[in-house]
């Protein structure tokens, strides 16, 4: 029998996509999807170790007041639970034990600022890249075409060539800590999804197809294991055919749920 998949969706302090993330996980076949407030982790009522699939949803952690997820990253780094355990160590153990982590939008920003991504050389928890203001210096909500890198080890995007999902952010432009980092991300296939032109399917820097001016159209990254994945666009927001902006014209591409389905298939040992 395939193993049970329990999903944990973390919320609190300004996260606001927790319900649709939990729904997406359930709809994709997870046995359980629990929404836990950060306070539940601190109190020890909820333990990462009891789950296999961890989701950091979108939102505005602490209002992104010091830059996206900057304050929240420090909360994760410096908080100890009621029993004196370090949350960061729990997170580290979760990744090491084969769990899957998905960060969406503000969740991706949090993972990057925590150094959970891209973790070149498996050096978790050092900040190697960051995400900053869109080139337009504006928050924007629009749907984007993504090209999926099939060479990537990412387990969430196996078998996918493209995706069409919304972006809703003001700080989605990737900034590496050095030109070498960017080169390695590409070379080591840690770039998972890139903004693409709908007609050619090729990576684009053209606004608004690339909504934030991210170099090489980078929209999402994974770690070298492929089990930790973060992206700016919102696959959970395409959980029903009527989410598509032109569904009334009969347009029905793949739902964003496929990202969650892949995760669950992987955890069940089916992929």
């Amino acid at each position: 029998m395939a193993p049970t998949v329990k999903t944990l969706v973390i919320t609190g302090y300004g996260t606001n996509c927790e319900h649709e993330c939990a729904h997406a996980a359930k709809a994709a076949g997870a046995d359980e999807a629990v929404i836990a407030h950060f306070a539940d982790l601190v109190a020890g009522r909820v333990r990462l170790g009891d789950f296999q699939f961890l989701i950091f949803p979108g939102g505005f952690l602490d209002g992104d007041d010091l830059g996206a997820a900057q304050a929240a990253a420090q909360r994760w780094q410096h908080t100890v639970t009621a029993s004196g355990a370090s949350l960061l160590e729990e997170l580290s153990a979760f990744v090491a034990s084969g769990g899957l982590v998905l960060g969406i939008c503000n969740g991706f920003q949090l993972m990057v600022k925590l150094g959970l991504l891209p973790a070149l050389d498996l050096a978790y928890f050092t900040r190697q890249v960051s995400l900053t203001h869109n080139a337009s210096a504006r928050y924007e909500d629009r749907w984007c075409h993504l090209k999926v890198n099939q060479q990537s080890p990412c387990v969430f995007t196996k078998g996918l060539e493209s995706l069409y999902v919304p972006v809703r952010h003001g700080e989605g432009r990737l900034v590496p800590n050095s030109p070498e980092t960017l080169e390695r991300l590409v070379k080591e296939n840690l770039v998972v999804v890139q903004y693409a032109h709908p007609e050619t399917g090729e990576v684009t820097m053209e606004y608004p197809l690339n909504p934030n001016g991210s170099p090489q159209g980078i929209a999402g990254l994974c770690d070298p294991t492929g089990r930790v994945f973060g992206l700016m666009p919102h696959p959970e927001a395409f959980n029903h055919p009527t989410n598509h902006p032109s569904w009334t014209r009969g347009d029905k591409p793949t739902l964003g749920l496929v990202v969650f389905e892949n995760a669950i298939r992987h955890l069940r040992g089916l992929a």
Partner: protein
Amino acid sequence: MLFNITVCPKPHLDDCVGRNITHKIQEALGIHVHETHVAQVFTVEGLDTAGVERAVAEGVLHDPVLHDAFLTPPPSQADYVLEVGFRPGVTDNVARTARETLGLVLGGKESIQVYTALQYHFTTSAGRAAVEHIAADLLANALIQRYSIKSKAEWQAEPGFAPVAARVTGAASNEVAVIPLASMSDSAMEDFSKANTLALSLEEMHAVRAHYAQPEVQATRRSMGLPEDPTDAEIEVLAQTWSEHCKHKIFSAAIQYENKETGRREAINSLYKTCIQRPTAMMRKQMGEKDYCRSVFKDNAGVVAFTDSHDVCIKVETHNSPSALDPYGGALTGIVGVNRDPMGTGMGAELVCNMDVFCFASPFYEGELPPRLLHPRRVMEGVREGVEHGGNKSGVPTVNGSVVFHERFLGKPLVYCGTVGMLPRMLHGKPGHEKKANPGDAIVMVGGRIGKDGIHGATFSSEELHEGSPVTAVQIGDPITQRKMYDCVIRARNLGLYSAITDNGAGGLSSSVGEMAEDTGGCELDLAKAPLKYDGMKPWEILLSEAQERMTLAVPQENLAAFLALAKEMDVEATSLGHYTDSGFFHVTYAGKNVALLPMEFLHDGVPQMQLEAEWVRPAAFPQGNDVLLKNNVPCQFEDAVGQHTGGHGGFLLDMMGTLNICSKEYLIRQYDHEVKGGSVVKPLVGVMRDGPADAAVVRPLLDSEAGLVLSHGICPKFSDADTYWMMANAIDEAVRNAVAVGADPTTLAGVDNFCWCDPVQSEKTPDGKYKLAQLVRANKALEQYCLGFGVPCVSGKDSMKNDFMGGGEKISIPPTVLFSVLGNIHNVNKAVTSDFKTEGEAIFLLGRTANELAGSEAAEALGLAGGAVPQVDLLAAKTRYALVHQAMQQGLISACHDLSDGGLAVALAEMALGGRLGARVNLARVLAEKGLGVAALLYSESASRLLVTVRREHLAAFQQLMGTHMGFDAALIGNVANTGTLVVAHGDNEVLRLDVEELAEAFKATLRW
């Protein structure tokens, strides 16, 4: 000691924030700045040198990949440096987060204080005066911010600015003053009311004095150790409870209405009771078992049925006066504030979506600005950003809205913010929409702390805006503190920890506790327990403060410990401030000292009813039964006026597509998250290129269900100068029509009326008060008639009655404006319809008749034409039409549907065409219209209740049969969708216009492509 930590973008990275500022300066002020770099300054207090050095080394306040952080002034080659910081007491969200983060990393949060400022480093050849202009008129609002400027030479001589701590200073105070009302003359009372922004009339002051003069009142007060005269807190509580804002005195007034046209006189005892409450009560009675209203008018939001498991609620508020003074803070507070209404409805609703409607003067206004008014472009940008931050950061999608432009909104912008919430139908064995505080329950305040912000908000908004309007009325919302509170409240609700909840809005604790105390008949409130932002507040200020992000709950004593523990765990401040009683008194103390003792009955029912007169005389410019248009007071043929356009009909339509009221609002829409929560079905922008306008929003709030909600609105102040009766009728018709156009079931609609009026009380300041009140009466009569007629019960509403500006010897009164919002059900979201043309060959039907109704129309406005006939609404025809359209949609016969409103048939066609990037061939000769109507009037008349629908060939017979079964149903097949990419309109054999769809799209999008 104060330290400045200055955070600058790394020089090798693209500074898009700076570039954006450069661009804004050019666009808004026409000043050329070569380059702008923006640095964030954190002024830190309560850390030692080692502490701040650690903060910099560990990247606590900055991101080492993106920024450099400096403990000394950063190097700068700028020609000018401008620093903008907050004034003491103004909400500074970035500082709050910085303080919490420093406290978390370094410890000792309690002793740390942070104040922030922004530093703009300009490379520019424009001089100091230009930089002053940039500061004063774009980047700083002197009401809430301070700024300093240094030139290059000054910076080099002495780099940086000295750290400024925007500290509020003062000592804790238990001072309670006594107001010697008994000995005051009438003029002294009037002066006292004015000087303290009480907005109490002389008659009301007399009522207060009479109350205190009663022997039994005096005896009670003596026995309780209170002075015979009122305390400052009592006067303040009465003033705010009795304010126009809270008591709706004009809507409750006894009005003598005289219609000079008919000679008829009529006595109206409360417009609110007669024209708003009564029709809803009648409809509910008529519906009997099928009544879908759950709770109307009595709670913070109106509650209606949705599914078997859930009810929904809706509330729309305005935040006009604060938005006039500080557009960003005012609008942010508006949206975050209205979110608390559903949160405080029933046992507390989860938030579903927001809607925003703004009314501004033209952002391209070039005239003189009266004193203290901000330029409309600045108002618009500030409001846009305020709602962006408020809505996006709260995680509530902004799904519907519009922007209405009219020159008289220069005097006061209107900022309508609405929120829909969702409640479990049953909660812990009781209906979710019911709540009741019990005697003994603890009064618990949750969320933000109390500061001087927002004192007198309720009374301030009950006055006209003037040059000396108080600054404390301005607040800045804090969406994250509220979000944390919301997470905590919803969890406490699900755990059953409280018995009642309401929000702290206008009037603060005085209002929230006062209202909840009506459940039990009294309360004991100790202000000394209230958590304050800073010392130096008097008891009455604590009681009246409208500091944001607070809810008041009634928590049974047995749950109090559990509730407070939960809040603490979730990092939310919660404090017990006393308890509810059945003593009959609103009793307030400060650590044992009496502050206020007011009988509940007098507090809530003591305000004397206003006696007003209204007189209707039809405006000379719009004589009854006359459809003649005037140019410079001379009769003018509409056909000629349009025909004179150098570009012909095509050129005129392109102009029309770009007018402010018609043009694309994509600029705003894209900056609002309209999809968070994952249930978006019909978005604000639709079609192939996602740039066609949607008629209304459809959302699916329960993700495992296909039941949806439709949210729409109607607003047409442009008809008010002709007749507010038809303004109101058209607004209701437009809201219903928009809802039906996307698929709402017209038998499930609920309405919300939001009146924004100019002062309608006859006085020296308002010599035309009788006429303005008559306008109000007429709008209410239409509201009554059309809500009953359409079967749309109003479930909630609000009024804002003093939207006038006075200053510099000038008075600007807004056009009377009603936003009518509609919330409806769509039982299966898969049946929703959008406005974009779908495929070639589909038949285009125009439903409804077109008359020569051009008064207030966008075309008349564009051509500078006055007068004319205002559109009238044929209720029976409209209602039948909407029911049939819904039936056809249910059968899947309609592929696109769009309402005709601003710009009439021509604009509606163009919008459908650009949405689908498909052309069409249309013959105007087939339009069902008033005899002899010219081509231009056919295209641009704004006759009510009309819709365009498209029908696929295979459904044509079924559609025509459905329509044909209903006698008198006005459906005309006027043309077909074409794959030519060209919109061609003819009248018979004469081609009227031919336009490329891309050209139309470009004209539609160019005006506000900022």
